[in-house]
């Protein structure tokens, strides 16, 4: 298969136009770190964006950064970190989970739209993408959004690009909002709660005025032992429930005490400070207990999003019915489930249970033959699915971009 390494937006236009003319579908890649996610694609050539890797501008005082889509995520994260800033949505580093050497590019981060624990407080990737330049499946370079944080001019196309897995347009340059990094953080740790009690504790914490920025639960202590960051919690035979507080030091200390008191009915909370706390949340964010090189590395992994207060019951049911392992984030609103391998990754059962809870499930990790036979992304009601397809066609009528990635289609 041809790999076409583009140098600028004009190259991208040229490649897409030629692809339209010859009716060849393109797979869009940056570093290829998330190529294993989605339905196996029916594409004829690779459009490689990794050479579009420049930081166009970084203005810390304006709280924005503009970079080319192929810019390495690791470089951009360390650049904004050097100015005590961060992406508040805490992008997931999928390298460990997917077993790739690289954490990928900014374009991939946006296309995948995977936000970490702080999503419950700061919003998702969608909430921080302010503007983009992209080439549609018409072969035209267009602009969406702007370079300021407050903007309602025209349709908010950036929302659509986020999480579209490269099926609408090829982003070439993006402007993201950055936020100050909190001065300090700590994590309250409750031990020994079952899934339902942990869900209630997290619900209480998130319904408190103490500005909780992370609420996770690991129901199987063995999962902690195998993952760095979590391993240090030393909780033999006990589940751990984690609640993060961030901000100015005095404020964090005050809220930790108050939240500990409010959660007294769930037990006495230990407090994990700064560096150890950060390591814990990196481990939750990146789903380290399910790492590809770990004990559960061969298992398919589902990413389930549901109403947070129903997460505990849903996760408990799934793990009981499948013998699988689960980890809760977002106060129960996000469940990572690693199920014993099956040809269909237990898709029918998972979807039934998740539908009943009002959520949706994505098969984020599975071998190619499994992904070929299973809907990787959650099937939608007919009307919604048809509307989504019309939206897709409005960007890419010839189905040039990442053909077949989000929905199974007959290969051409």
């Amino acid at each position, binding site marked *: 298969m041809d790999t*076409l*390494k583009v140098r600028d937006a004009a190259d991208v236009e*040229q*490649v897409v136009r*030629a692809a339209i*003319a*010859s009716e*060849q579908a393109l797979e869009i890649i940056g570093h290829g770190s998330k190529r294993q996610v989605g339905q196996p694609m029916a594409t*004829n050539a690779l459009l*490689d964006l990794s050479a579009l890797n420049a930081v166009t501008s970084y203005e810390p005082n304006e*709280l924005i950064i503009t970079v080319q889509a192929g810019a390495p995520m690791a470089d951009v994260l360390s650049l904004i970190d050097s100015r005590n800033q961060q992406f508040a949505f805490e992008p997931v580093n999928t390298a460990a989970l997917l077993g790739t050497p690289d954490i990928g590019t900014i374009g991939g981060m946006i296309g995948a739209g995977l936000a970490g624990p702080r*999503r419950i407080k700061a919003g998702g990737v*969608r*909430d921080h993408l302010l503007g983009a330049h992209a080439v*549609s499946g018409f072969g*035209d370079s*267009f*602009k*969406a959004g*702007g*370079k*300021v*944080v*407050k*903007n*309602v001019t*025209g*349709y*908010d*196309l950036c*929302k659509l690009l986020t*999480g*579209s897995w490269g099926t609408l347009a090829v982003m070439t340059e993006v402007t993201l909002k950055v*936020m*100050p990094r909190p*001065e300090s953080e700590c994590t309250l740790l409750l031990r020994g709660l079952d899934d339902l009690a942990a869900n209630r504790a997290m*619900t209480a914490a998130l*319904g408190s*005025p*103490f500005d909780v920025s992370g609420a996770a639960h690991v129901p199987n202590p063995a999962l902690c032992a195998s993952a760095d960051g979590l391993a240090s919690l030393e909780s033999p035979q006990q589940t751990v429930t984690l609640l993060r507080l961030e901000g100015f030091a*005095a*404020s964090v200390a005050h*809220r930790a005490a108050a939240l500990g008191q409010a959660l007294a009915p769930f037990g006495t909370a230990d407090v994990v400070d700064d560096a150890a706390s950060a390591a814990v949340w990196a481990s939750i964010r990146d789903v380290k207990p399910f790492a590809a090189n770990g004990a559960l590395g061969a298992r398919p992994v589902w990413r389930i*999003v*549901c*109403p*947070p207060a129903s997460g505990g019951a849903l996760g408990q049911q799934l793990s009981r019915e499948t013998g699988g392992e689960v980890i809760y984030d*977002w106060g129960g609103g996000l469940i990572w489930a690693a199920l014993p391998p099956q040809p269909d990754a237990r898709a029918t059962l998972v979807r039934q249970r998740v539908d009943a809870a*009002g959520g*949706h499930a994505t098969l984020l990790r599975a071998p190619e033959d499994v992904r070929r036979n299973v809907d990787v*992304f*959650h099937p*939608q009601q007919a009307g919604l*699915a048809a*509307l*989504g397809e*019309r939206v897709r066609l*409005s*960007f890419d*009528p010839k189905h040039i971009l990442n053909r077949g990635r989000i929905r199974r289609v007959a290969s051409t």
Partner: protein
Amino acid sequence: MTIMMPASDQEVLARREAIVAALRAIVPGEGVIDSPAEMLPYESDALMAYRQPPMVVVLPDTTEQVSKVLKYCFDEGIKVVPRGSGTSLSGGALPLADGVLLGLGKFKRIREIDFDNRAVVVEPGVTNLAISQAVAHRGFYYAPDPSSQIACSIGGNVAENSGGVHCLKYGMTTNNVLGCEIVLISGEVIRIGGKSPETDGYDLMGIITGSEGLLGVVTEVTVRILQKPETARALMVGFAQVEAAGQCVADIIGAGIIPGGMEMMDKPAIHAAEAFVHAGYPLDVEALLIIELDGPGVEVDELIKRVEAIALRCGSTICQISKSEQERNLFWAGRKAAFPAVGRISPDYLCMDGTIPRGALPRALARIRDLSEKYGLGVANVFHAGDGNLHPLILYDANKPGEMDKAEAFGADILRCCVEFGGVLTGEHGVGVEKRDLMPDMFSEIDLNQQQRLKCAFDAQGLLNPGKVFPTLHRCAELGRVHVHGGRLAFPDIPRF
């Protein structure tokens, strides 16, 4: 009216009686209004310079009725303009002479309050403030707070992606809605999202929010609610130069502090507000900042100290810190009354709404001063300083011939200057009819075509709210055409591997 609306369809107007009868069959009783006198309140929204009585007003009260009305209009080729509370500042709900005005005012129920999932399910006619009031007894609130929050509806907030004073820290509508039920022009009812933190598939909620009534009619909204901060205190800081105030704003953000709100007023705005509400604003400063910090008391106390130090370093000539809730509210009273206050010193005013990068503030204000001289019209500036959202109020007298045209030209120049300085045409009021013809100043034809293609995915006939947002409407068939350049998958100039 200086803006051209789509030409009326005489064939539709000729059928008016039959259309009214058909709508009465769907929405019985007083839900269909066709007498000119009774339609009067609907002939404009809060952008009152533009008026147009609709062909007929329909006020359904169930999703089923909305669906049937839209399906009827779709089948009959009749234009529809949706309307919430009519508080749009950009003419988003301006009726069409040959169009049905679809009012959602009867959708007033709060359907469900789910504290555990921190979500409230409401009908679109519920006011913004009513949501906060309904959850206040448990310490919750709905964060976006447009200044019209007593009156504006949540459906309208979704349509316009409304902001407010506190959106610097807590986001706009789009950052605080979880899902909706929407009726397409075909009458089809679609549910998007719900109480989950994220929707699945393409982020259609994100595209519907801020779509200004061009994509569908929202009949239910699920919003996210937050716990109220433990406490809030405000600083009132005056500066002898606008530049120093701008520097102060930049330095606060640069120090890693995101205030709950950070507002700026220039001298004319300060004087008008002070004369109106007697908030105790200093009259000898060029710029006044109101900075609110919220959170736990210990945090607020600490940040107040830090902000005060920054203000002094930037050369503030006065810096007062609120010592009571009453005093905090007094600091805000002047800012919140700025628009009516300006209304007292001028027969009419035009409220603009551009956003600029924060750093461009002094340049933008200097430009506005120059334009004010050029046009011979006064201007007062209030400014959501934290996020660069500028609200110049242009003072004019509509009774003086030509003055309104002059005010509009002045306003257009200000918005062009926002774009020139790296900003955008509208930060929170929407494009509507007001900024429609300026869209090409910010977007190329290709950009606008892509937005219109998206419109085609929802409403290929262009029946929903035509004449808003886009200066020229292209046919969907024409927009959907793919132009084929060249013939083979050959990329002569591109490195291959």
